[in-house]
């Protein structure tokens, strides 16, 4: 690879290969090597960072500001940390309207309050017109370690709980771009997952937020490191009506569509019902469902399988490149 392609940024296999080939070896640090959502540091704190380059800046249900807060907050939550502080670095393009910036900052403030984090440090840079896409944001987050989830603790029989419907964020952004002449009532699900923190003490073994690449990608990464295959029931996966419609119209698979406020939780079988009930009590978790299981009746270790609504079995691969609408 001599030049960076857009495809690399889509978060799939290409990105992971890039990290493994270029980033990890450059620093050779055991803390980095884990490539977790957030890293637990000595002293009981966790650190994470993320950059936000979404286009368009505003979409139904959120904007780059809400993303910048919730994305980083959620990385901490699913890694086992209570989010406390964020840094906020803005890279602004010359010519950006002040009113747009005001809206974004207002969203950041509202989101931070909702997630109960404080913005405590930051930076602002301005680049020449044409050298940045209106606003780029980076946030780093610091949280208090409340759990140290380890994949080694995942057992056969553990259940997978999805906290809500898939793909709403992805579709909201697509539509806000005016892509594909589609209109619907869909809204991004961008939200803080702080309400999941108590689940660490309720027995949750592992969590991941379902972002770029969608559920299939997130679970592929999980199953790669497990000695058992994972089976998902297609019928059990909650989908909103707009996402169902768009996926049939455009041929995009909701299992690969990004969310910004949903997580998958691995829970021991005995605790699953209780954990599910707790998630469902929260407004953001009303559509939560048990969608699958770590098992060994079907499939081979390292495989992520989907039992289709018609009873067939399908192998799910991680997303290798950008999500595409199809005509075929």
């Amino acid at each position, binding site marked *: 690879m001599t030049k960076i392609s857009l495809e690399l940024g889509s978060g799939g296999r290409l990105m992971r290969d890039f990290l493994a080939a270029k980033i990890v070896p450059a620093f050779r640090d055991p803390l980095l090597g884990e490539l977790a959502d957030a890293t637990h540091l000595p002293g009981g704190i966790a650190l994470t960072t993320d950059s936000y380059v979404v286009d368009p800046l505003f979409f139904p249900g959120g904007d780059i500001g809400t993303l910048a807060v919730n994305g980083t907050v959620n990385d901490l939550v699913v890694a086992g940390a209570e989010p406390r502080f964020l840094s906020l670095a803005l890279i602004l393009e010359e010519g950006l309207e002040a009113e747009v910036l005001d809206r974004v900052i207002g969203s950041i403030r509202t989101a931070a309050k909702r997630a109960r984090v404080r913005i405590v440090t930051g930076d602002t840079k301005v680049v020449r017109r044409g050298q940045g896409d209106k606003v780029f944001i980076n946030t780093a987050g610091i949280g208090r370690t409340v759990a140290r989830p380890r994949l080694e603790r995942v057992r056969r029989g553990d259940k997978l709980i999805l906290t809500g419907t898939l793909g709403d964020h992805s579709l909201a952004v697509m539509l806000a771009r005016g892509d594909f002449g*589609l209109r619907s*009532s869909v809204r991004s699900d961008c939200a803080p997952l702080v309400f999941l923190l108590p689940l660490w003490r309720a027995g949750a073994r592992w969590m991941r937020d379902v972002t770029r690449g969608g559920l299939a990608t997130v679970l592929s990464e999980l199953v790669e490191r497990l000695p058992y295959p994972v089976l998902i029931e297609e019928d059990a996966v909650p989908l909103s009506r*707009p996402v169902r419609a768009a996926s*049939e*119209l455009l041929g995009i698979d909701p299992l690969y569509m990004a969310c910004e406020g949903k997580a998958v939780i691995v829970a021991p079988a005995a605790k699953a019902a209780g954990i599910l009930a707790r998630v469902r009590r929260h407004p953001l978790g009303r559509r939560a469902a048990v969608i699958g299981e770590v098992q060994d009746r079907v499939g081979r270790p390292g495989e992520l399988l989907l039992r289709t609504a018609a009873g067939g079995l399908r192998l799910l691969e991680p997303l290798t490149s950008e999500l595409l609408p199809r005509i*075929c």
Partner: protein
Amino acid sequence: MCLAVPAKIVRLEESGQGTASYMGSEVRANFSLVPRARPGDWVIIHAGFAISIVDAREARETLRLFKEMAATDRR
């Protein structure tokens, strides 16, 4: 190569463009290939073009057939 869905025409414009509704979502499409279609008709939409008008009676008949098959099976 045949990904297409049946959608109900909501609005037709002079230009041949219009909107159709599918499971509560609205899609813009071009209806020039089915000049006899009217708002309220169901059409098959592929790659942004309506290519065929659904025969409502045949559709109902097919559904009835399948419902029957499902029912007799559960006896």
